[in-house]
């Protein structure tokens, strides 16, 4: 019995010892809020590394399903018939609706951008909230972080307002689990502008706290002045592109756009991409990833505008099913030169790839676009099938490691042409035309005849003569089955497209929306994802389609059934 008691004592002892704090187990894999933001340095790191990076990733770094793949095919910036990432369905004409239902086509991309965009805004808001109680060590440091958080949140709101019909306007006053009400895109854009203005204001009052650490925007140790310029440029982009229709665009305060552009960047704004460091831009380069043109082609409807051989007109005249790739013979030096495919292929395949930059310096090299060897063709729907690929991204993709190095997310060309557009809309042709000619007639870029400064209307053809003008556009008088010389507006749009291709988030789509150039029925924005609506216990809805209120009207260039196709 003594042994029995000993065993019992041992058992009790074991039980007592094993009970001591046993069930308190920390999660050493992930930090919670207290640990993540526990120190001033951590808080600054959180704001600095996460806020803008997430906003950037929300738009340009989605490796698979995201909106960028859809935006590019909808804006005719890219073309692919593959089902992957909804490229085929979104790029097809006639346009269908965005079937915003669980498991709907492209649903993953819709949810992804909406979620990550809000996450960027929430990260910034959490940072702003913490800054009210935690000091980073100095007022200057606090101000810099605060300005940066406002900036990142403003960019996140701005991009959400561009892409979605509504979004949540988050604030540093929200509780963690709050479901913030949805606001329309105009209200979201207003919030973006307000945050961006706050960023400028805080920076102006604390310029001594700059430059930014170069890791906050990778490779950019921005001074206060440079930072403010960047903020102004974002403001300009957002203001000019938030409109859904030409009518809404007409209501934009274009004078403000000019003001913002003038206060904005003075050179391409580039990020040193480094995927392993979290800075990436995927789709402009990913288009080449498989080596197959089935993932990417340049749409011949747009490229054809540079053609002076008559091939574009012939192509337009064919029924959709009869359309076939044609050689774009053009004096525009940004496209491969030559009258035959062989000649253009030869012109394209000079040693070395063309790129936006050589090192970090802007590269005037041409062409931007290549005519691929015939053996690399990947037949597509005849409407989009072409022999051309975008080429300035090739060096970037071929870099080691891939997709590393400088890449523009906002170009001075974009800003210049936004200003040009603003001047045109304000009927200040004299101010607009030099801005258009800056790339159009630059011998290192377009090399096209300059538009005379005397042009003061939208009726006059661009120079070059009836047979050699660039751009040529589908002629409404010929029921879009033939071409005519474009006017100054067409020249602006051609310049904008060729200069901004693959250098930002949905560049052609947002611009085409404002200009009224989208194919009929193209959704004018994305609905709030069905997953989010379900979480909010609200019905989800679809957007777009021919004849739908939220679908684009018949395009200026005949992009509707019975027109070009």
């Amino acid at each position, binding site marked *: 019995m003594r*042994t*029995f008691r*000993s*065993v*019992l004592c*041992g*058992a009790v002892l*074991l039980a007592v*010892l094993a009970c*001591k*704090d*046993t*069930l*308190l*187990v920390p*999660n050493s*894999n*992930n930090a*919670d*809020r207290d*640990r*993540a933001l526990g120190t001033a340095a951590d808080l600054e*790191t959180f704001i600095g*590394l996460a806020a803008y990076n*997430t906003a950037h*990733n929300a738009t340009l770094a989605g490796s698979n399903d995201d909106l960028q793949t859809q935006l590019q095919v909808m804006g005719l910036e890219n073309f*692919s*018939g593959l*089902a992957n990432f*909804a490229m*085929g369905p979104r790029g097809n004409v006639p346009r269908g609706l965005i*079937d915003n239902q*669980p*498991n709907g*086509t492209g649903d993953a991309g819709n949810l992804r951008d*909406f979620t990550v965009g*809000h*996450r960027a805004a*929430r990260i910034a808001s959490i940072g702003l909230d913490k800054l009210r109680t935690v000091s980073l060590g100095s007022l200057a440091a606090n101000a810099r972080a605060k300005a940066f958080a406002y900036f990142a949140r403003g960019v996140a709101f701005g991009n959400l307002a561009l892409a979605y019909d509504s979004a949540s306007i988050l604030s540093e006053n*929200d509780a963690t689990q*709050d479901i913030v009400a949805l606001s329309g895109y105009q209200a979201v854009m207003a919030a973006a502008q307000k945050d961006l203005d706050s960023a400028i204001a805080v920076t102006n009052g604390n310029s001594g706290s700059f430059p930014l650490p170069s890791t906050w925007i990778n490779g950019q140790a921005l001074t206060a002045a440079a930072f403010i310029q960047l903020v102004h440029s974002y403001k300009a982009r957002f203001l000019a592109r938030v409109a859904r229709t030409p009518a809404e665009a007409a209501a934009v305060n274009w004078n403000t756009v000019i003001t913002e552009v003038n206060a904005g960047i003075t050179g391409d704004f580039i990020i040193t991409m*480094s995927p392993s*460091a*979290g800075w990436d831009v995927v789709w402009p380069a990913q288009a080449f990833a498989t080596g197959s043109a*089935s993932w990417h082609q340049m749409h011949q409807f747009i490229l054809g505008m540079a053609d002076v051989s008559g091939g574009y007109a012939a192509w337009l005249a064919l029924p959709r099913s009869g359309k*076939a*790739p044609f050689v774009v013979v053009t004096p525009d030096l940004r496209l491969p030169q030559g009258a035959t495919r062989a000649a253009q292929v030869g012109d394209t395949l000079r040693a070395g790839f063309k790129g936006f930059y050589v090192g970090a310096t802007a590269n005037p090299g041409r062409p931007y676009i290549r005519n691929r060897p015939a*053996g*690399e*063709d*990947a*037949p597509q*729907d005849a409407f989009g*099938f072409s*022999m051309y690929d975008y080429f300035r991204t090739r060096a970037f993709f*071929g870099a080691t490691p891939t997709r590393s190095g400088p890449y523009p997310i906002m170009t001075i060309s974009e800003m210049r042409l936004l200003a040009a557009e603003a001047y045109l809309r304000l009927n200040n042709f004299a101010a607009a035309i030099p801005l258009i000619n800056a790339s159009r007639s630059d011998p290192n870029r377009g090399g096209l005849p300059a538009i005379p400064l005397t042009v003061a209307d939208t009726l006059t053809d661009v120079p070059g003569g009836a047979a050699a003008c660039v751009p040529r556009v589908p002629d409404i008088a010929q029921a879009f089955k033939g071409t005519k010389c474009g006017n100054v507006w067409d020249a602006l749009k051609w310049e904008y497209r060729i200069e901004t291709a693959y250098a930002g988030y949905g560049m052609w789509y947002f611009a085409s929306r404002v200009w009224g150039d989208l194919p009929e029925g193209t959704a004018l924005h994305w609905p709030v994802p069905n997953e*989010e609506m379900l979480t*909010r216990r609200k019905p989800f809805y*679809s957007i777009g*389609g021919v004849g739908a209120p939220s679908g684009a009207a018949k395009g200026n260039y005949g992009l509707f059934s019975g027109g070009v196709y």
Partner: protein
Amino acid sequence: MTHSRRDLWFGAIVLAALSLAGAGRALAQDAVIKGRVVSDRGEPVVGANVFIEELRLGVNTTNQGTYLLTVPSARARGQQVFLRARGIGFKPTSKQITLNTGELTVDFTLVYDVNLLQQVVVTGVQGETEMAKIPFALDHVDAAQMSVPGQDALTQLKGKVAGVDIVSASGRPGAQPAVLLRGPTMINAQGRSQDPLYIVDGIVINGNLPDLNPNDIESVEVVKGAAGSSLYGARAGNGVIQITTKSGRHAADGLRFNVRSEAGVSDIERDFGIARFQGLITDETGKRFCEFVTGQPLCARTFDYQTAVDRANNQPTDWAGQTPAIPFDPGATIPTTVPSISGSPLRERFQIMPWPQTAYNAVAQTVDPHAHSNTSLDMTGRFGGTTFYTSVDQYSEAGAIRYLQGLRRYSFRANVDQVIGTNWNFAVRTSYSRNSQDGLWTDGGNNAFFRLTRVPAIANVLATDTTGRIYIRPNLQQGGQQNENPIYSFQNVGRSDVANRFIGGITVQYTPATWANLSANFSYDLRRLTYFQGQDKGYRTTGPAAAPTTNNGTVFRGASGNEALSASLNALFKKDFSTDLRTHATLAYQFEDRQTNFSQGQGNFLTFKGVTTLNNVTQNFTVSSSFTDIKQIGLAGGVGAEYKGRYILDALLRRDGSSLFGVDNRWRTWGRVSGAWLLNQEPWWPVPQFSQLKLRASYGTAGGSPQFSAQYETFGIATGGIPTLGNLGNKLLRPEIHRELEIGTDIELLNRYALTVTYAKSNIDDQILPAPVSASTGFTQQWSNAGTLQNKTLELTLNVPMIQRRDASWTMRFIYSRTRSMITKLGVPPYFFGGPNQGNTTMFKAVQGEAFGTLYGHRFVTTCAELPAPYNQDCGGTASSYQRNDEGFIVWVGSGNSWTEGITKNLWETSNATGAFGVIENWGMPILIRQNGVPSLLPLGNALPNFQFAVTQDVTWKRFTLYALVDASIGQHVFDEGFHWAHLDFLSKDVDQVGKNVQNAKPMGYFWRTNSADGFTGLGGYYDQLGPNNYTVEDASYAKLREVSLSYRVGPIGGRGDWTVSLIGRNLYTLTGYRGFDPEVGIAGGEAGSAAINGADNFVFPNLRSFTVAVRTSF
């Protein structure tokens, strides 16, 4: 080591020391009882236990069935005692004797317990209990019932226990089967498992059982639901499978050796039907293919396929060279019109042309029967109070795929039992195993088995270039990575997974009095896995340009560990208030600490060829690691009573604390109350032919736990060390509660025929689900208790000993089960979910009122009622605009036409611009059901079977033994993803139209994409999109001849040993209408977390068939 674990070790040492202090008595002898135990067929019963319970003395019989029991003189005082005899597989018996000094001979004849009613079981019960007195369903499977050893402990349970769904979803050697007991229990199993709790010799295992040597198994016990598993509390909601390994406890004195060696080959039973014909455009000779050249007329340039293949592959580079563009290219997108072809080729062309050169079968070229071998040596012995069982085992299953080595496992076991005096018993169980395998990368999309489904018959996957390299691109089509030769990757992708596992435990049992039994257990389970996957520098790619990240090599390495430490204290007290009323009570304490960790790194661009270390990579280097620690404390108590041997009551409570929950939700109480009534024991029972008629009912609760991180708010680290928001934690999360009511009956007639019927209904409340959170929170998700899954199960087991004679016996065993799983409550918005791979990630829908496992996808119209009005009125007749074609689909044919007239009237070229669903309908093509123009997602079937059954035959005749098992799974559906996706390239066999006539032949477009309304340039068709539809979600019912063994007992050879020779077959034949490799298929992972649920045939390693010869002897 953490503080608490040090405490635990200390406690264990103290316990062991105390235990040893009480040991040390010596034996003496005076009375000798001897005799022989034989079966009712006259055979000696080896290893039977003859014992005197009152004295707690016993001995085992020898190989001749004899025994010798000595009783110390001090204990032999002329008293009356019962001498009992019990043998495994026999009904026990007893004889009353008077115990005096001197010699006494007592012989026994044991009756075969063909239904194992007297089998003592230990799982889920408060102490060792005979099966006949268990008040809930418990299945016991003896080693004798597993005469065909499986690759692992679970595989060989197939078809042996009703209500146990074991799916060998991948035939890859080393792959673990998925297990469901009475259906799924979790709507979302991410980061956890639908598998039951596994226990080996009382040691709760941390994870699965891939390392256990099946030859070591003595028995398996299965408790399938909370009604029986409450004893194990918070982790037992999925049921319990307990494995008892062999020991020497029943061994006779001395040593006994068993040697078993098995060798044979494995292959693959079925083929994946790749098309044998082609529809490409050729010149007028039919021998040369037309090349697509932009702007040039069709066939302006032609090429010879093999010449082009040779040219592309015979390149000095690490990538294949340029290939000609094929104008009508399977694998790439097809234009509505290829230039210079009039009309649409999709409407015009029929896949009927043979390939102009040698045609190959890529599957046949890939399958290469490999060796299957297993050699096992064990030694069992008894020396005084020490008994032991040790074994060494080598297992090799090389599989059947060229260049793969498969699985190799070496294992060692030592089980030792030591009796000291009459009060102490020590049991030590240890095992160590090492297994290695190489095929882990081959399954799934974009891997080798995916590419195997994309090989046209003209491609010779075994061709080599001038330097002996296997062609990287024997397939000229423009399909990207799918052009890569699967054989090349089998040969050149290196993979190695090496696992070392140690499982050890010590149990000390102290019996201070007949009414008390105290025990303590301390156990440790460690599994260390290291893995490597790499492609060496120079790995070839399909071109036509370099793929530097691959060409320069990749290395992926990692290591993971699962470690579990547990300790328990148990006390069992018995009290007989009278001869009629016997009671017992138990108390238990248990502590568990389970840790998992992994670290891994990868990168590419190797510096040196042939060096596989991580420091040989120079670019894209990434590392990751994780560590989790879960602790649990359990306190349990129970009581049980048996009245008059026919009324049995059992009740227990267990309170568990778990570190997986927030402070306020850590502790939870589980329990069970159950009872049994043995009607046949009633004096008034009028039918003596019932040797048992037991009614039983049990109600119990058990738990389900969340994944480790669920309670925590997490800030993640994105690529580049950038902070991000992850999981919105939930400290209020509660465990899932399994509440199960089970009723059943166990019937035995004439001591022979047995029938067991069980009905169970369980509600698994508080389902732990990842509730989507609003994007405005910035977080991704939050785990919450938000649903109920209900399972209703009917199980039936019938055991029919047809013949039971000494020279001949024939027993047939039949099991049947069906489970219905329903989501009866869902507190989150309905959502789609599925497997982990492209195309199947959203094949299920979670919605209240839905049968769990329902497959969703697009649906082609098959009945007129599915057409909207008024189109449904113009349907079904011979003159209707909509008619049913020979494949059962409703198609538009236009008024006055027949679906058979597509060719004769040239109707395939026509369309109905605004069809029934408002979009274009192409003549004769399947029509998708739509809403607002968008294809609807509709139920297509269920991935879980309607019912399962198995039939086992055991026949012995003289020296021959025949064993056969057929098991069947009926009514489950599988998304045949491989078959579905191959339609994109016209490579599914149904695209071939050879043998069809002008009435029923279909053009290629019939099998391709949906039409332009969906953004595609297709016309029909079966390929549709990547997700499931009702053409490729197939009834995957099957019946398999799972195991066959024909043995001949040779007996001693040269006076030595006892030899038996067996012919063994596994997975010999599958009866099914399924079109893929194997209807027994699925994919692990995803939200359902089990290959038994994820019914998608996603390019997995086909199941193996094996033929072997086994030789066994003992001496």
